[in-house]
């Protein structure tokens, strides 16, 4: 049987462990509860569009809409896999898994419906740089990274941060 000294040590360890768990849970609690920031849809300043419906945005993302109304071809800039912005547009907007999204674009090019798939950007800075330099470009960045001078589209009439904004 367990001696009294060993029993006291085990009880202390258990109390210390429980305390540590409580502290960790408190520390993690507010972070988990904090909502992830909305994702802003940013376009080149010359794109003649201020608002897209959610369905139109999905058509752009899936390559079903290839041109802006001015006749400029849409250049789709999407973050590389694992980035949260990519997850938001692939899963939240396109309602697809990463594998389905890849297969969709492979098939799209193979069907000759579009010459190329989306272009990959590896950081928000790269996305911002490219969208400002490429006519017709559209990209997706966390709303907290939006700076002055960037053209952010409304989705269904809402800007990031407004209640009901769907790109999140």
């Amino acid at each position: 049987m367990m001696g009294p000294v060993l029993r006291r040590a085990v009880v202390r360890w258990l109390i210390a462990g429980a305390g540590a768990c409580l502290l960790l849970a408190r520390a993690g609690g507010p972070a988990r509860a904090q909502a992830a920031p909305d994702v802003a849809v940013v376009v080149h300043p010359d794109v003649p569009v201020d608002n897209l419906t959610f369905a139109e945005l999905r058509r752009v993302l899936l390559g079903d809409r290839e041109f802006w109304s001015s006749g400029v071809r849409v250049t789709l800039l999407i973050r590389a896999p694992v980035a949260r912005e990519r997850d938001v547009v692939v899963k939240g907007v396109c309602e697809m898994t990463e594998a389905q999204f890849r297969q969709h674009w492979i098939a799209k090019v193979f069907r000759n419906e579009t010459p190329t798939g989306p272009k990959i950007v590896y950081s928000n800075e790269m996305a911002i740089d490219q969208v400002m330099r490429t006519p017709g470009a559209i990209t997706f960045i966390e709303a907290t990274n939006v700076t002055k001078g960037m053209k952010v589209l409304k989705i269904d009439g809402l800007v990031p941060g407004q209640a009901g904004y769907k790109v999140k």
Partner: protein
Amino acid sequence: MGYNRPLLRRFPCHPRCNALSVCLAMAILSGPAAALAGQGPSSGPAPSQQHDMGQPAGAAQDYPTLHIAGFGDVDYSQTKQPEGPRGFSLGQFVLHMTSELSPRVTFFGELSFTARSDAGTGTPPAAGFNAEIERMILRFDESDRLKISFGRYHTPINWWNTAFHHGQWLQTTITRPEMIQFGGKFLPVHFVGALVEGAAPAGGWNVNYQAGFGNGRGQVISRAGDAGDNNGFRATLLNFFSKPDRFFGLQFGGSFYFDKITLPDTRDFAERIVAGHVVWQKEDPELIAEVAAVRHQQVDTALVTWSHAYYIQAAYRLPQFDRLWKPYYRFEHIGVNPMDPVFTTVPNLNDGSTLGIRFDASQFVALKGEFRTWRRASSQPRNYGGFFQVCFTF
């Protein structure tokens, strides 16, 4: 699912390269080269990202561009009564090339290499593989509403024919439905001519259209008139389909095709084809249904025949096991009018059932296993068999 898994990659290269030599070099070298590329630091694009996503942003756009990708498959089959290949067989080795010639003009090519069962026979001996230009299309994109192209197409009067083309990896099942089988005669698989196409939002209905004008079937009715039409009547086609926003994943539409067929014995037949499709493209579930009716009338006679075909396919990607497994079932039927002189060599299919499962072994490789049972006519014995396929894209 590792995104940096070293896999075969798409190769952008300069268009002045001899296309064939590039293809061969790619086939030989791409594996190890891509594997090495995938082992490098993660600062650049992973090979698997390049496959479907074109070039990384920031690369200078220099026309013309050329990208090559491809599909391949290896098959195994065992049937009760001999029909089709037995044992292992090489499926098609398919290469497709896309090249932007300017911001609005693109070229698309698709080459296939198919193993021949008569290899080495005849004089001169037949080659081991048959090379074919499956598609060769030059397209001008004015806008989403208007795109004009010229070349050789997969005839857009059947959904499967233009959704999967020669990409076995893209389709859920091992084979195409028999009504649109490659080398089949029921529907014209290829079309040579010009196509006008486009799409309009139409209040969220997203109506797409395709209108074609070109050579119809050749004297061998399974082939398009690649070297010219064999009569003075061009084929015309019209295809409409809708992808409504409200039911994302749904597509439905219909097609019409008009042609005059001249058989080798010089008899002429007016051909009319009416077809329709309904597709639910999400994978939980995936539903595909198509129907086509073919009307032939011998010119200057009252002989009119109708033949019809349909299939319905259902699949479901299981949410368990990382969504890698996808069981499926297909039922199909082809009813050929025995009085139709044009379809004398087209086999009937009283009923055909396919039960199978697809396993996505990696992002670009799939394994499929199937059991099929079919009967050509009610008076004939039922045949059945087991089939296996490993297919991939690179």
